[in-house]
Each structure stands twice: as C-alpha cells, then as structure tokens.
C-alpha cells in the first residue's frame, strides 16, 4: 500500500523532503506553462527554457528540504531558471546573445521589484500554433511546452513512435527559435485565423484524450482535463472571443458524458443509450452558460456550432429527447462551411432521426466514394446502424464487420459485435415468424 498524504510521517527530515517534493510538484502542475512562457518569450528558445526549468526543479528538490520551501516557489524557480539561461548565453558570447543577456538581467531586476508573475501562456500558445509550423506538431508542442508532457506520453496519445515524436518536437522548437516566430498575441484581422489554429490544436489534444480507450491509463494524466484547462486559459485571457467560448463549451459538454459512456462492466454505451442522469450536470450547466455568452457575440464559427449541437443532445436531460431537427440544421450549416466528410456522416445520422433511416442512407450515399471515409470507423458504424434500421441485414452486418476491424477500443469492438449479432438474430426471428 502506498502512503497516503494524510498519514503523519515521523521522521522530520523525510517530512521536509516530502513537503518540498509536494511543493515542487504543485508548481509543476499548475505553473509549468506559465514559467516556460516567460522564460522562452524574450529569446524564443523554448528548448533552452525547458532545460533551464528542469534544472531549477532539480535544484529545488535539493535545496528546499534543508532551507525550507520559499514563500513564492514559482518566483524562486523562475529566478534560478533565468540565471541558468543567462549563464548559457554568457558562455556563447555572441553579439545577439549579449542583447538577450541584458534583457534577461533587466527582467530579473524588474522581477525583484514586482514579484507578480505575468501570464504569457497565450503568447506561447500562439507561437506553438504558428502557421509556419506543421499543423500536426502544434498540439504536441502545446502539450509539451505548456503542460510539461514528455515526448513518450505525447507519442502514445498521437499514436506515433516516441523517438519520432521527440525528433519532431525538437525540430519544431528549433524552427521557432531560428525562423523568428513571434511570442505575441496577434491583433486586428490577424487574430481570428491565428486563434483558430490555437483552438484547433487544443481540440486535437482534447480529442486524443477523449478517445483514449476508457481513459483509464493511470500513468498518463487525463489529456482531456488538461485540454479543458488550456481552453480555460484562452477564455480567461480572451473573454470576448466566441470561438474560444465555443470550444470550451464543446469540450465540457463532451466531458460531461464521459462516465455515462461506460456501463458498470466497462462496456461501451453509445450516446443514444446513455442515461442522462449519469451526465455531469455541473459541467453541462457551465457549458451552456459559455454557449450563451458566445451567442451574444458576433459571428458563429465551427466550435460554437459544434457546442450548440452538443447542447441540443443535452436537451435529453430536460425533454427526454434530443432536439434532432436542431442538430440536423446545425450540421447542415457546419457542412456548408467545412465540407468535412466527418460532419457529413454526423449529419446523415441526425437526418435519419428526423426523416428516417432511408433519408440518412441517401445522405450518406453522396459520400460513399470519399477516400477519406474508407478507413474511418465512425462512417462504417453509422452506415451499419442505418442499414440495420432500414432492414438491409446483410449489408448492415458487413458494415458492422468493417467498423469492428477499424476499431482500436476493445469495448467498442465488442459493442459492434453484439449489434451485428443482434441484427442477424432479429432477421432469423423474422424468417421463423414467416414460416
């Protein structure tokens, strides 16, 4: 059994060491991104900032047990890390380095007078989601620099080899430093598209975390929670941006249903079969409030629309039935603006709820040849369900099989297998009745 925090530790030396470790861990969890953001902003060297901060944390674990945890652990870590960077620049002795050096020394002096640590995380997010960087590396980069995830954990989330992910992260950080990518929040007309890239990256991190089978891996911190935390940072620093509000609302709506997606045996429960009483009411209420705030601002983008769709699903809580006509209409708007085959699949499912399975299948048929859907599990699962409802048993079974073959989550695979068997059994029953 592991020692619980509440249990008193007799040895005072061990106690101070444990206290120091707890204090360091608390900063690592809550303040990591803030510190990296400040340390990397002046000279744009994220890797150097991370290394300096890692050294500062290591020193804290040596220093704090004997000297006590400083009054402001964050300020202590920041000062030590800044010193490390200054020392590093001093060793390089370049002209450009000399300027950075002076800036950092000035910053350190200023910090002594104003111990309040400014929040520059948004600037770091904009640097990590800069258009000059490959879209696929933006979310991993944000997870590493703002949350301190290591390359191996990020690699697992994005289903990439750890060594490859490590190399991609190193390359991206080098590019930020060498290509002169700015650490600032864009203004004016530039803000909306650039913010879109930041929000996309946060949503990618959330989606990977959400799809994580069961989210039960104890070693990995819940990625979805962390992504929601990033969404909160953006909303706090840009409170008048409807898409930022929309994304946070969308993530909270999805997260509210996490527990309801599993039955007591750990089996998968699809949305339609979920018990709304198992949804997290507090999260839904917060999501709804955010969506209302977003709707009062001009312009409805992708995330606000998707949040509105989730809100229409959540209506089941009150009305016993999701607002399918609204869901259908919202997907149509989304489809018109994105042209995404993924949206088309969802729209077809919604249409089937309003106009019947045949109408859904017809809507889906327009996308059947799209190569982007050929290996897309939700397309096959949706198709199977609609075929089953339309009474096309053989085609339904085949589609269920295809969805099973494309699924990574064992509990979802078992669910699809059960559906496939149920469709076959129902038909066998019909034949029996005919005879």
């Amino acid at each position, binding site marked *: 059994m592991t020692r619980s925090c509440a249990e008193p530790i007799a040895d005072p030396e061990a106690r101070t060491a444990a206290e120091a470790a707890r204090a360091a861990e608390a900063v690592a969890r809550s303040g990591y991104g803030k510190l990296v953001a400040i340390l990397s902003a002046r000279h744009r060297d994220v890797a150097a900032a991370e290394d300096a901060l890692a050294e500062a944390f290591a020193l804290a674990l040596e220093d704090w047990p004997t000297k006590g945890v400083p009054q402001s652990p964050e300020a202590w870590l920041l000062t030590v890390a800044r010193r490390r960077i200054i020392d590093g620049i001093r060793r390089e002795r370049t002209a450009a380095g000399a300027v950075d050096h002076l800036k950092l020394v000035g910053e350190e002096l200023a910090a002594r007078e104003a111990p309040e640590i400014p929040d520059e995380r948004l600037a770091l997010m904009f640097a990590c989601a800069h258009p000059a960087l490959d879209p696929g590396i933006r979310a991993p980069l944000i997870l590493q620099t703002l949350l301190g995830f290591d390359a191996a954990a990020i690699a697992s989330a994005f289903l990439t*080899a750890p060594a490859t992910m490590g190399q991609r992260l190193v390359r991206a950080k080098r590019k930020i430093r060498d290509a002169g990518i700015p650490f600032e929040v864009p203004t004016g007309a530039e803000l909306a598209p650039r913010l879109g890239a930041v929000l996309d990256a946060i949503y990618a991190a959330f989606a990977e975390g959400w799809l994580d089978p069961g989210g039960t891996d104890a070693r990995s911190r819940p990625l979805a929670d962390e992504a929601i935390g990033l969404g909160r940072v953006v909303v706090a620093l840009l409170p008048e941006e409807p898409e930022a509000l929309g994304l946070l609302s969308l993530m909270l709506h999805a997260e509210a249903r996490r527990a309801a997606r599993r039955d007591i045996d750990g089996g998968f429960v699809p949305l339609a079969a979920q018990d709304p009483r198992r949804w997290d009411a507090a999260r839904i209420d917060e999501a709804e409030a955010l969506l209302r705030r977003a709707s009062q601002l001009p312009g409805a983008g992708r995330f606000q629309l998707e949040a509105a769709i989730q809100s229409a699903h959540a209506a089941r809580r009150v009305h016993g039935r999701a607002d399918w006509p609204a869901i259908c209409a919202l997907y149509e708007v989304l489809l018109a603006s994105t042209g995404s085959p993924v949206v088309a699949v969802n729209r077809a499912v919604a249409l089937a709820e309003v106009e019947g399975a045949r109408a859904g299948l017809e809507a889906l048929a327009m996308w059947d040849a799209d190569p982007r859907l050929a290996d897309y599990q939700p397309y096959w699962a949706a198709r199977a369900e609609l075929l089953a409802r339309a009474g096309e048993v053989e085609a339904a079974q085949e589609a269920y*099989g295809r969805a099973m073959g494309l699924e990574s989550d064992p509990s979802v695979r078992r669910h699809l*297998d059960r559906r496939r068997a149920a469709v076959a059994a129902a038909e066998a029953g019909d034949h029996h009745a005919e005879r």
Partner: protein
Amino acid sequence: MQFMLLIYEDDADRVEHMDERMPHCGAYVEAMQKAGIYVCGERLRAVGTTTQVRVREGTAHVLDGPYVEAKEQLAGFHLIEVPDLDAALLWASRCPSAGRGVVEVRPVWPR
C-alpha cells in the same frame, strides 16, 4: 513500406479463447484487405508445438518447446504495406491482440 506486425499474447489464454475471438480477428484482417494494405498473415499453433533446431560445431541440436518462458509468446503475424510508420502504428492499434498482449511493429528490410 512493408511492416511486420508481430503479435505476442498469453498463449494458454489465446488458445483457450481462439474460437470466440475469431470474428474480431477476421473483421480486422478484412478491414486491412479492403484498405488494400494487407500482404499476408498467419496465426501460429500453440507454443507447446514448437521445436527448436540449432547447429553448433557441425552438430545439430533439436529441442522441444520454446526457448524462453516469457509470459507473452509469439502468436502470429500480419505483413502490411503502408506509406509510413505512423500508418503502421494506427493499424497495429486496431489489432484485437493489442488489447490483450502486445503488437510489435517492425519495418521489413527492403530488398
């Protein structure tokens, strides 16, 4: 690029549940075939059927059974042709055996 997906599983458990798990495995292979990436693959008989051969100083030594008593044993393989490692990892994650044992993904040495 060709990748070998080497499947390792608890052998006793695998052999015991072979029949009930076949539909999942079949669906997986069919999805790979439909995706046009499947080269070939086989499942192996129980690990107890293994016979080892080695030749040392001109003399052949034949032994019964597997060499190491690891918990997870080689259970079978799939050979696939995909553009890169990321694609191979995605397919490996869909392998039903990955939910129980482990799937090792290794590139085939090109001829």
